[in-house]
């Protein structure tokens, strides 16, 4: 076999593997998306129909009529608020950890370790507090509880970004009489703005998809999309069309966001360990 044929075969094999992987990883997503446009006689047919013959938006209308917009609004409010809080409190702390080495090595690693706290380990105390405060089923309860994972994440990620920018500019500003807070806010923070945005997007994604706390804390007023979708899975009947429509609504924003932070995906998902 010549070198050329071997190279050709190797590259064809690579494309074959890529194609196979694409089929496996995209098929379920395409399937649930298509389900949103099928009629019950199509998704409740054995064997199932793959391509909807009379696609309509009826399930999206139904989702809107049955509180889907409210769930979407709740998800947006809660995810945005907890993200902004985590960025504000977190980047200030991260700056002190990176620049002034507050608490040496131990404090940053302690904060990082809190990121992995399992929700089941903190949920019962929260349940009792929120009951006492009458905070059950409210936005603020979820905004606060989502800080359990978002704040440690924001601190750790932002610390990494701050450590990458040269400190000379801030030092000369400090010599010129700028306060430390001013150096943080006017000089360091603008320099790490791409990192700040990426960290924020990841906090937003984690909050958006969260389920455990949401189902434990909310009931009707503050339900997020992940809890809302559970309503369509009845004991007697499963409303697959509505599940498909809600799935699309929940997926598409995250797909778009993940494209926007593509450059930071590895770093964001590995908590900065791989850059």
């Amino acid at each position: 076999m010549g070198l050329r044929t071997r190279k050709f075969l190797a590259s064809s094999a690579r494309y074959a593997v890529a194609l196979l992987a694409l089929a496996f990883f995209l098929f379920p997503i395409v399937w649930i998306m298509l389900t949103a446009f099928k009629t019950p006689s199509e998704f409740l047919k054995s064997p199932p129909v793959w391509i909807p013959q009379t696609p309509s938006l009826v399930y999206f209308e139904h989702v809107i009529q049955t509180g889907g917009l409210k769930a979407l609004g709740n998800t947006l409010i809660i995810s945005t608020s907890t993200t902004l809080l985590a960025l504000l409190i977190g980047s200030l702390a991260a700056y002190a950890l990176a620049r002034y080495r507050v608490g040496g090595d131990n404090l940053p690693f302690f904060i990082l370790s809190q990121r992995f706290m399992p929700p089941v380990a903190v949920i019962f105390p929260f349940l009792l507090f929120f009951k006492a405060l009458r905070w059950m089923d409210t936005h603020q309860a979820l905004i606060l509880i989502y800080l359990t994972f978002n704040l440690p994440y924001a601190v750790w990620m932002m610390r990494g970004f701050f450590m990458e920018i040269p400190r000379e500019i801030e030092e000369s500003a400090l010599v010129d009489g700028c306060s430390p807070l001013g150096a943080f806010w006017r000089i360091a923070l603008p320099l790490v703005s791409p990192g700040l945005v990426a960290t924020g997007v990841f906090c937003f994604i984690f909050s958006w998809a969260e389920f455990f706390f949401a189902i434990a804390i909310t009931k009707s007023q503050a339900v997020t999309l992940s809890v809302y979708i559970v309503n369509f899975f009845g004991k007697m009947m499963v409303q697959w069309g509505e599940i498909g429509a809600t799935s699309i609504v929940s997926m598409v924003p995250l797909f778009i966001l993940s494209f926007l932070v593509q450059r930071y995906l590895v770093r964001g998902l590995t908590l900065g360990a791989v850059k």
Partner: protein
Amino acid sequence: MVATTEALTLKSKTPRRKRRELIPWMFVAPCIMVILLVTVFPTVYSLGLSLTKWEIGLQERPFIGLGNYIELFSTARFWHSLLITLLVVVVGVSIEFLLGFGLAQTLSSQMKGKRVIVAALLLPVMVMPVVVGYTWRLLWDAQYGPINQIIGWIIGQPFTYTWLAKTETALLAILVTEIWQWTPFMFLVLLSGLAVLDPEIFEAAEIDGASGWAKLWYMTLPLMRPIIIVALLIRGLDALKFFDIIFTLTGGGPGNSTETLSFYIYQMGYQFFRLGYGAAASFVLLVFLAVFLTYLLKAFKSAVGS
């Protein structure tokens, strides 16, 4: 001379200077307070809960020492849920790693449309786990699911196996689902690890006549070691909390046979309102987590430096 330096250091410790030293701590203070409030305090409180008999309908919440833990360790359902959790962590994450590594190796060289392929392969990571669970529930469905349909095409006759109604295949379904969602993560991380390896040492090895396997075993794997460890540990820590997919894919069933520890604790708290007992079980989870975490922090210290 000595006296002057002493005077200078004394002078530099003026109140103003002291305030300057305090400022960084003031930057960290809000964060530490929130973390104390949302993670440390609840964990300590939960430890207290785990030592009391906290159940619905009880007027008193007596201190019962290790009573909850003793009951826990003598409950078969608890051990079973721990076993399922570890199964997902060990088997699921290992397969994710192998598949992800294979894919990364295959797609690491230059090819047309690579960016689009990588971006598309990553989409499963961005789907809510709750949605992932329902989607696969529909895919595995005995009558309405395409999996049985495709098997039917292959064997040439209708196939209506109820995957989720039998423990063994329900477990298989859970593993496949977990692997489907998280193999892309492994793939992406390992792909970026492969991208920074120096191609020159591989060329040198090729000239020396090293085979593909030898290069993989003696060069790629050792060089990738830090990244592989971090990827495995991050995935493992996440899988220890496995809950959402169980909730929507099998609901812990058939029976309680596919319950993970998180699911079991949730059931104890929300179905039976046994908060003390549930808290005790959550501490067992925390112990496993702490072991993984110790290794992860070590890996971080060597990977990121400090």
